[in-house]
């Protein structure tokens, strides 16, 4: 069994006509309604590429041929590289990978169980856990360090991650190009220079667009800064159904799709071939209260629609996964995350782990981080589909055992024990055994496991000179990033 490789054919949530329809309507929206572009640089790029632009109104009307040309220029497969190449992630439509969820502001303390503002230590600890989890591929800062200067939070997030994990780092949204500049400096210091960073981008960064159809100032400029250096940009759309997007899933799929095509056009016109990931994190409105949830069925439908649009374009996608609006690691968390996670994976998600947070990406729970990982691990096994090879059908062994025997000690059984899914937390024991072991809930077990990993896992440290250089860059960044 190859871990992380999809063998099950992705589920179709949009048929061929619907895909075409959404695509053509996206083109029409970009051309006829236009898109609000707060970034001067982006407006200039669009202007010079032949779009109709009103610099004063900060509007651009992008002709379909530009959008389609940009789609052709965007690479269809690439790698998210890691400090240690054995942790590289393939984005090729066949591999599935798992990232942490982010970026929250609150942590449910592992010792006290109480909520408190999140700290750099939480970033460090969650990164350390990710380093220890074999199938957790990408580290996205789970929380932001509120005990450090807020304007330089991105730098401190990366700093804490570097000390604790060798896996690829996905920076959360950057809101200023200067943040990007200093983050790139840090990554270059680790990679051994800008050239090496371009060859093996060990970071990627989210560019969060604004719905309905806005390319915001700082985010767009930061995205261009990343693209200039060959850093993959996670182009993210987050329509809130009924609020910043139509209340119907199809409408929000459409508006989000147009947004991503818009930012991709800006990026590809300036930096042809720059890696862009199609990303979707919508929310749906609970119409009685006006509250929003990331994992209500409509939001999940939008996610699966976007995943399918991304696959239709051949762009790598990043969306959905084990997300939810529950406040504690409880049954609500479990079913929200299981349903959205499985749907994202079945729809053909490339990055669809998204582990660790509660309450709509805002609260870190160490227990939930491990429970989500367990769910992801199970889903990954399901994504393998049923192997029907001769070896898997086991006809010879069935004959050998006969109608009355058993398979327990058969060579075929022994040979395949390692292919069988094995739990880290899930308890299959009967009541008596479970009770004798302390009648622990899965949250109790996850708490113990988190403590065990934190106490025992030893990450590979950074070179001392690099550490020193990083400290200098962070100092410069704290001064240089406008605040």
């Amino acid at each position, binding site marked *: 069994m190859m871990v992380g490789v999809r063998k099950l054919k992705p589920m179709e949530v949009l048929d061929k006509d619907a895909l075409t329809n959404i695509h053509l309507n996206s083109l029409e929206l970009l051309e006829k309604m236009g898109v609000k572009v707060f970034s001067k640089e982006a407006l200039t790029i669009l202007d010079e590429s032949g779009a109709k632009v009103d610099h004063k109104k900060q509007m651009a009307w992008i002709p379909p041929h530009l959008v389609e040309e940009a789609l052709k220029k965007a690479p269809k497969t690439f790698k998210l590289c890691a400090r240690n190449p054995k942790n590289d992630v393939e984005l090729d439509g066949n591999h599935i990978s798992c990232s942490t969820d982010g970026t929250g502001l609150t942590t449910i303390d592992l010792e006290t169980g109480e909520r408190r503002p999140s700290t750099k230590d939480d970033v460090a600890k969650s990164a350390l856990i990710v380093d220890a989890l074999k199938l957790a591929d990408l580290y996205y800062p789970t929380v932001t360090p509120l005990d450090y200067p807020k304007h330089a939070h991105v730098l401190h997030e990366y700093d804490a991650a570097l000390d604790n994990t060798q896996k690829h780092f996905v920076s959360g949204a950057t809101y200023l190009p200067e943040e990007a500049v200093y983050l790139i400096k840090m990554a270059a210091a680790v990679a051994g220079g800008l050239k090496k960073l371009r060859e093996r981008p060990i970071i990627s960064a989210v560019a969060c667009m604004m719905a309905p159809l806005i390319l915001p100032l700082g985010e767009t400029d930061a995205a261009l800064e990343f693209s200039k250096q060959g850093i993959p940009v996670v182009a993210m759309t987050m329509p809130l159904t009924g609020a910043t997007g139509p209340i119907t899933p199809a409408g929000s799929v459409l508006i989000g799709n147009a947004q991503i095509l818009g930012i991709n056009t800006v990026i590809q016109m300036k930096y042809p071939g720059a890696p862009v990931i199609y990303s979707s994190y919508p929310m749906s409105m609970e119409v009685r209260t006006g509250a929003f949830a990331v994992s209500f069925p409509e939001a999940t439908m939008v996610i699966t629609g976007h995943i399918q649009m991304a696959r239709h374009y051949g762009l790598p996608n990043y969306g959905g996964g084990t997300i939810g609006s529950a406040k504690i690691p409880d049954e609500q968390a479990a079913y929200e995350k299981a349903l959205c996670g499985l749907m994202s994976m079945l729809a053909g998600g490339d990055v669809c782990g998204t582990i660790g947070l509660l309450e709509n990406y805002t609260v870190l729970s160490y227990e939930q981080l491990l429970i989500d990982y367990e769910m992801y691990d199970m889903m990954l096994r399901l994504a393998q589909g049923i192997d029907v090879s001769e070896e898997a059908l086991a006809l010879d062994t069935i004959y050998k055992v006969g109608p009355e025997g*058993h398979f*327990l*000690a*058969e*060579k075929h*059984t*022994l040979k395949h*024990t390692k292919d069988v899914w094995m739990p880290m937390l899930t308890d299959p*024991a*009967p*009541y*008596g*055994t479970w009770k*004798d072991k302390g009648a622990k809930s899965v949250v109790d077990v996850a708490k113990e496991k988190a403590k065990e990993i934190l106490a025992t896992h030893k990450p590979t440290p950074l070179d001392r000179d690099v550490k020193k250089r990083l400290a200098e860059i962070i100092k410069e960044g704290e001064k240089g990033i406008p605040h």
Partner: protein
Amino acid sequence: MSCVGVEILLIDSLLCYPIKVVIMQEEQTVLSKLGEAVKSFDEEAAVEAAKEALKIEMDPLEAIEKGLTKGMREVGDLYERGEVFIPHLVAAAEAMSSAIEVFEPEILARKAKRKVLGKVVIGTVAGDIHDIGKNLVSCLLTAAGFEVHDVGKDVSTEKFIEKAKEVEADVIGASTLMTVTAPEQKELADAIAKSGLKAKLVYIVGGAAVTPQWAEEIKAVYAPDANSAVKAIKGLLETRK
């Protein structure tokens, strides 16, 4: 005389030494074959090695202890460390059991007694043919160092008692998956009480139809799964010694 004696001794040891070395080497080879067969879960190889051991007239008890049991212990360690799994334990135990069967006539002929943790008679009760759980417990007990007499499935109370008497059992284990056949476990409990079997005999019940309450009602020991059954039996035999 003394000189001659020394000479004879010298000649004797010079002559015998290489032969003894050869024998020891042969025995070592067979012992490691027995151990390896268990460790590689190879029933056929275990049986072959056992036959070889008999051919060179090895002490069967030594062959079991220093060959098979040693191998089994190593498999048990691997299991504890999570490197092999239940099917491997079962396969190793099956290889060991088959090899022991080869040794049994010779053990009887020598009137020797195998050192075991205890003797267990185990089976699925009359009317029930679900035996996978019972098989699992049976193998884990063998792996743990018990002498296990598996009487099979759909086993009458009489057959359980008869076998227990024959082998002087320390433990009787009765399994049932179905609620409708659970009363057979009570019948067996009553029969054990009247049978004159050892007073310290452990009667353990298991299977999906068994609850702790039911076990208590029929004065039997309850184990929820195979590992707990082995643990419970070990513990009880220790305290009832």
